[in-house]
């Protein structure tokens, strides 16, 4: 899966958790999930669960610590899929 293909599936997941005052247009590869997109840090857990369902993969506790922006997530998904 290319990073663009992953992004296409990832974007709607992230969109669900955006605060009302943040537009979905602001989601790009470099967006920091909590600092720029203003996603409540508690929701990072939900985003991970949704990703697990969509990509049929499983994250570990250590993986969670590496996730800051959309690129980090894409990279991890790529790793998991190809593993």
């Amino acid at each position: 899966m290319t990073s663009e293909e992953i992004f296409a599936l990832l974007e709607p997941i992230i969109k669900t958790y955006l605060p009302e005052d943040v537009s979905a247009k602001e989601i790009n590869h470099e967006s920091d999930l909590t600092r720029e997109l203003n996603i409540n840090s508690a929701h990072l857990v939900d985003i991970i669960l949704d990703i697990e369902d969509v990509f049929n993969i499983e994250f570990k506790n250590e993986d969670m610590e590496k996730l800051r922006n959309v690129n980090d997530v894409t990279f991890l998904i790529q790793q998991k899929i190809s593993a």
Partner: protein
Amino acid sequence: MKKRVVVTGLGVVSPNGVGLPKFSDSIKKGISGIRFFPELRDLKFSCQLGAMPTISEEKKREYLSELQLRNFNSSGILYGVIAGMDALKDAKLEPAKNEEEPLWDLGIIFGSGTSGVEKFREAIYKIDDKNVRRLGSNSVAQTMTSGVSAYLGGIIGAGNMVTANSSACATGTEALLMGYDHIANGKATYMLCGSTSDSGPYIWGGFDAMKVTTYKYNDSPENVAGPMSVDASGFVPGSGAGAYILESLENAQKRGATIYAEVLGGAINNGGQRGGGSMTAPNSLAIQKCIKDALKNSNISASEIDYINGHLTATIKDPDEIENWSIALNRKGEEFPYINSLKGMVGHCLAASGSIEIVSAILQLHEGFVFPNVNCEKLHPKIATMISSEKISMKLLKTSLQTIAKASFGFGDVNACVIFKKI
């Protein structure tokens, strides 16, 4: 010097009407919210009747965002949020804007018995399946007792005390009296108070097991013998929420708010599970003391009470409650005030009973009517020896009320009584 406290906003999510206009119309007409639930039959409940507010998906979205509704499974929080936000709107108050500071002078005391039992059930299945990591982020918020006050606190931006009280079936009445103290003592300008209760088999099951619900009317929910009836054989479990905005008289007058009633005062006590009282049954002496203390605290005499909104659950304890009122007020026969019980129409809404019933009591005081007692044609003979049957109307009565009493009693031998006066 204590401040005088008034009610300036109401909200209600009742099995027989969601929102004040619908609820007010239903209680005047004696419309019941009691229904047969096939799910309860399939689960082999003795009582297959229940009472549950009807909330459409559109209605949910008027109060909660798509994100809040994601994996949302707590009926009690939903009811509480709707009733609470309706009360706020009714009082013409606005939530804090997102970019502003919280409303430091607005507090919340919104109680529940237990929160999000359906959500808790989901979580328990996942945990037992060794899948705790799949619970997601909102399991705690929906199952904590203070879930309802926390949701309301966030939506409103409340900056004063935000808490949830819990005292079984007295929760809603206790919440009002706690809020009253807070306003009377000048600790907040506005208090949103109320209570909520989940719907469904997981909240109702324990009562079914105790045989305090009725098994006799599964085929005829419209005929369930009501409170004070000789045929009363147990309650129908209900659910929903009621809410009220309290503020000082001075503040309400200054801002030109609609004043529904003054809270003259009240009392909360406990029978100590002594003297006939137990975990599940009340100590009559404590009930009498609670009512007398409420009168004393309100600085009125028993003769001034025009109307009583009873706890009266449609169990064998109803005659005892009438006797306790009669002794506490030292009034009987035709001298006894009007009395009714909402539970004939909405069942026993458990932790929400006090608050939904308080909303019904305040509407009667404000508009000048006494709603009909439903399915109480055959009055319990013991009650008939104590008070005149004219005081237990089966029909809607239009009559001006000045001073009224509401009491709630709950498991743990808890009692709460509040006195309202028309302004």
